[in-house]
């Protein structure tokens, strides 16, 4: 299969959108493109499975490698393993859902959908890149659309949030770039798989690992560089929030894994205590900060900080299971938080408020949306049957395998966050969904077909992953295995 | 001529250059500033001629260079004066301190 399709189709769709006339045409084109992309992603998944079962054990499949700037060692080198496919599927579902949720975006609809599709192209490209420079290219492609999406279509102090988000993410990619340069000047290659085979001296790794990890960490809301998350998410329009939390934060996690940890494993070992420290702080701190929020979007944004902490924690622990868990958590969090934002957006368009205190008893007037909200909440607090549980438990299980006592403590603290999560999710749900219905909200309507479909797609993903985790586990197994070969297993089991 | 060492000439030219520069920095009248620049150019001319004469008498690089400098200085002065005239038309002053509208 030609992986370039994954980049070309969003691009073509985005360009077609520019020729569309009026909201109706534009949204249909976007949806068609996104659905096509989702179809291709699923097809890719099937092909991948077929190839694997036929005994192909290459680390990367469907590889294409064309010289791009050959003089600089830059290649258009793409390929996928299970981790990338999981991410691609995540992206594809969130994109479809995002487009469906913005079905009635009348304000500059053409530009809106164009930017959404451009953003998704960046994410796809990022996930399939096997060349550091291409990867970096797509990472940055995904930044600017966010700025415009938040700044133009957002609400609240949108300009401030958009600027903060763009600048912090650019700072992140600046750090990534420095890390990347360090690797490049050491190995004279941008080829991730080739670099992995070369040995970078520990001293060099120690210098550049922090740059790469921190840079991607900013994308993944690593404490204390998470402050773009709450404001950015809160100000963004619904679809952009979904993209931000669902896709864009995953770029960071994926980068931490694929670039920082995979290429500089020794340094990852050396610095794991810092990573774990920051991740643990993010988890606990994010959870407690969420507890004090009164705006639904802020609640979800801070909870994203906390949840993305699990991703970082899983990577920092460096055991096969924990990295597995980190990947699972990325997918899970992407789906779940996108669903959450979708639900919040639906509520907001009807009630025109996101303040918990002003809402109440929505279950009575909009049972579907409320159910979606509750499902997202339950997934967020790690209920079995939904993806969050599988992911979090894998992270915990894997983290615990690391025999270091202090890391155990970190694991326990991370586990403790599930209680705090329960508190804030239930507080939010209890106040908004349950309780007496407000006078002004008695006449509101429930979800329309597009909203139902959007939520449905995400819920299917969440439930599928929660009920049949062995499927996705198999999918990402080989990929994680490749990374583990590089990292080496820290467990010294007797 | 033969008795004067190169360093003496260089002293003169350097002094001339510095005088010109001092004039450029302190004079407020644009024409005077232009004259100061001419002083500096001339000091360079002296340099070229002196170097040519004392050190590399077999080629005429330095002499030619100074001829070109003189030519260009003339062109420069012409344009500069034209600009100053126009400045006078718009500002009714050729004081350099009066033309500091654009700043920061």
């Amino acid at each position: 299969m030609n992986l370039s399709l994954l980049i070309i189709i969003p691009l073509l769709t985005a360009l077609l959108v520019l020729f569309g006339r009026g909201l109706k045409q534009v949204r249909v084109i976007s949806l068609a493109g996104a659905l096509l992309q989702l179809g291709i992603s699923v097809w890719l998944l099937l092909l991948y499975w077929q190839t694997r079962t036929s005994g192909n054990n290459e680390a990367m499949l469907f590889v294409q490698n064309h010289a791009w700037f050959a003089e600089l060692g830059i290649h258009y080198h793409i390929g996928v393993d299970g981790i990338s496919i999981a991410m691609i599927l995540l992206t594809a579902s969130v994109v479809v859902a995002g487009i469906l949720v913005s079905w009635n975006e009348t304000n500059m609809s053409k530009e809106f959908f164009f930017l959404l599709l451009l953003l998704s192209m960046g994410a796809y490209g990022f996930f399939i890149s096997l060349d550091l420079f291409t990867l970096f290219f797509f990472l940055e492609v995904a930044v600017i659309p966010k700025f415009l999406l938040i700044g133009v279509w957002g609400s609240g102090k949108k300009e401030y949030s958009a600027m903060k988000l763009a600048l912090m993410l650019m700072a992140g990619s600046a750090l990534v770039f420095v890390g990347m340069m360090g690797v490049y000047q050491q190995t004279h290659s941008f080829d991730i798989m080739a670099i992995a085979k070369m040995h970078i001296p520990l001293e060099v790794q120690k210098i550049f690992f922090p740059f790469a990890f921190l840079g991607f960490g900013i994308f993944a809301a690593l404490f204390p560089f998470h402050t773009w998350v709450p404001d950015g998410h809160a100000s963004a329009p619904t679809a952009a929030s979904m993209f931000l939390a669902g896709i864009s934060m995953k770029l960071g996690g994926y980068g931490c894994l694929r670039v920082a940890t995979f290429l500089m494993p020794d340094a990852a070992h050396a610095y794991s205590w810092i990573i774990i420290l920051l991740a643990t702080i993010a988890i606990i701190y994010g959870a407690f900060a969420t507890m004090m929020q009164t705006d639904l979007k802020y609640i979800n944004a801070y909870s994203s900080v906390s949840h993305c902490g699990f991703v970082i924690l899983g990577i920092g622990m460096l055991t096969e299971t924990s990295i597995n868990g980190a990947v699972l958590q990325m997918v899970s969090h992407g789906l779940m938080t996108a669903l959450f934002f979708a639900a919040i957006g639906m509520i907001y368009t009807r009630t025109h408020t996101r303040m918990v205190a002003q809402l109440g008893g929505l279950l009575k007037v909009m049972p579907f949306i409320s159910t979606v909200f509750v499902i997202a909440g339950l997934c967020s607090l790690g209920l079995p049957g939904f993806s969050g549980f599988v992911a979090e438990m894998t992270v915990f299980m894997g983290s615990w395998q690391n025999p270091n006592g202090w890391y155990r403590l970190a694991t326990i603290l991370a586990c403790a966050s599930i209680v705090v999560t329960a508190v804030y999710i239930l507080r939010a749900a209890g106040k908004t969904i349950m309780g007496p219905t407000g006078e002004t909200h008695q006449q509101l309507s429930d979800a329309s077909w597009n909203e139902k479909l959007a939520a449905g797609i995400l819920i299917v993903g969440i439930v599928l992953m929660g009920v049949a985790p062995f499927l996705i586990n198999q999918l990402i197994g080989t990929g994680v295995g490749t990374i583990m070969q590089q990292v080496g297993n820290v467990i010294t089991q007797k | 001529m033969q008795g004067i060492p190169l360093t003496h000439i260089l002293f003169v030219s350097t002094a001339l250059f510095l005088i010109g520069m001092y004039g450029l920095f302190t004079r407020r009248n644009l024409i005077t500033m232009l004259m100061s620049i001419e002083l500096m150019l001339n000091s360079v001319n002296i340099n070229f001629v002196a170097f040519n004469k004392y050190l590399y008498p077999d080629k005429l690089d330095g002499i030619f260079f100074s001829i070109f400098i003189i030519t260009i200085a003339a062109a420069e002065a012409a344009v500069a004066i034209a600009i100053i005239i126009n400045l006078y038309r718009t500002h009714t002053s050729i004081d350099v301190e009066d033309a500091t509208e654009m700043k920061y």
Partner: protein
Amino acid sequence: MSNYSYLYWIPLLPLATFLVLGMFGRKYLSPISGMLGTLSLAGSTLISLFAANQYFFVDGKMNGVYQKITAFRFTWLTFSPNVSIDMSVIVDPISVMMLVVVTFVSLMVHVFSLGYMKGEKRFATYYAFLSLFTFSMLGLVLAGNIFQIYIFWELVGVSSFLLIGFYFEKPSAVAASKKAFIVTRFADLGFLIGILILAFYGKTLDIGVLVERLTSVQSPEYLGIAGAGFLGISVLSWGLSLVFIGGAGKSAMFPLHIWLPDAMEGPTPVSALIHAATMVVAGVYLVARLFPIFSMDVSVMHLITYVGVFSALFAAIIACTQTDIKRVLAYSTMSQIGYMMFALGISHQTGESGLGYMASMFHLFTHAFFKSLLFLGAGAVIHLVHSNDMKDMGGLRKWMPITHMAFLVGCLAISGIPPFAGFFSKEEILTAAFHNSPFVYGIALFTAGLTAFYMFRLYFSIFWKKEASHAYTHGEGTLTMKIPLVILTILAAGAGLLPFSRWVTADGISMETHTDLLFSAIPVSFTALAILLAMYWYKNENDKPARFASMAGGWYRAAHRKFYVDEIYLFVTGKILFPLVGRPIAWFDKNIVDGCMNLLATLTARFSSLIKRWQSGSVQNYALYFFGGIAALAVLFIYLWK
């Protein structure tokens, strides 16, 4: 040995019901949803009964020992090569016994709800949730993998949350459902960490293997876990205590019991099913499931014993002072579970000394019937009176004769009056306690008396006391409400006669128990005295109880206010966690972390305006800087930086 793999249909039927009703129930199936749920559960019940018959009477035994059979296993999630979550179906005495109890009581509740919840707008949703609960509980019961238990444990918790908050427009119901979920979640944290510990040292999540490894003293796993210590306590103790915390949370043991009384905000049949008969005994079941491992660690067994016995007493005292009938029942549940818990704590693994285990399971079994009977009876009463408070009741025996009889039988059973079911199981518990620890026995005995007292206080207050002054518009309720009451009455009266000890014991070997008349005399007479006292005080309206209450003064008030445990929790969360942790963090984030980023921006801007004078607009300055730049660079490069 035959194949038991069909057992997975037992949980799958309710699951299917849940899915169907959850997705289409509201719109399309509302009228028939009750029947649908009941029928599918009846199917499950039949299968369970069939399986129980097959296991206990046909082929469960091999060489005189009831076998532990893994009937079905399916790897659900692999963590590492030897640690994986397997969805499994395990067949052993306690799981089969629990299957019967859960499906049966659930069926009764389903039937009862047909009448009780009639006319409710969210009828289908109610049945969907009930099915979800039943599914989760059955999954928990059948689990052969410790993580599987955890999974269904959580699911049980959430269905309990959903059902407690069923009347979502009532703020108190919302609060209660949140409380239930969060408190049990807190306990589950202990369970989770306990699992992590056990799984790490045992290198497996499979209960059978884990038990095997951690009970043989020579195995490297046992040596590893017992040898490692943390804060002077062996890791085995840590792990088991943490697992026990999980169980204690779900089983409402002190001090994690605070959610149970509030949980009575849910519909009464739900209380009968979840908060009396099934879910709350999950903690007991968990300890029983891991009993061989628990029995390896004496200190944890002591912990279990004392927590259990204290909870039994504590709850009984509070129960005497409550006036909400469901709350009284809730505290009585807590007290009875305390019995089961300490019975486990004082038991041993093998032979006669395993009596406690058997007694605990037996009590669990009988308790399920009489407690659900009591709750359903209370439900019928509430259905009629539309109030939970005993002050609003009195003299109801004429209005609802069947309920009256049922309730009386229930009270006799729970008090331990022979030959009702509770007598036999409680008898065994007391015997076990007597042989182990006189102290525990004493408290248990006293608690038994208290139990009889408050149950009959309840009984007399509802059905006697004053004459019914007002007429009720309808009778006892529909047939569907009466039938379960009758069936459960029969069971509450007769279940104790079953030869339970032949089937369920700690080591799978049948044992014979005898009823020692001499031994029974003391508790029975003590109980009878308590019943008489209750009759004397509450049968007719008088001021004796009030006088006594004022005599007891502060003690009474403390008991009435549930010994201020709720207040302590509120203090910790409301006065410490929120203002002292949450708010500072939120402040820190808004002002310090965010402030740092904004400060960077401000500093840049400030610096920018600081150097703006450089660009002064005067061409002479420019030239000066130009020259100064060259001079500085020249100095730098000629003299300083070579």
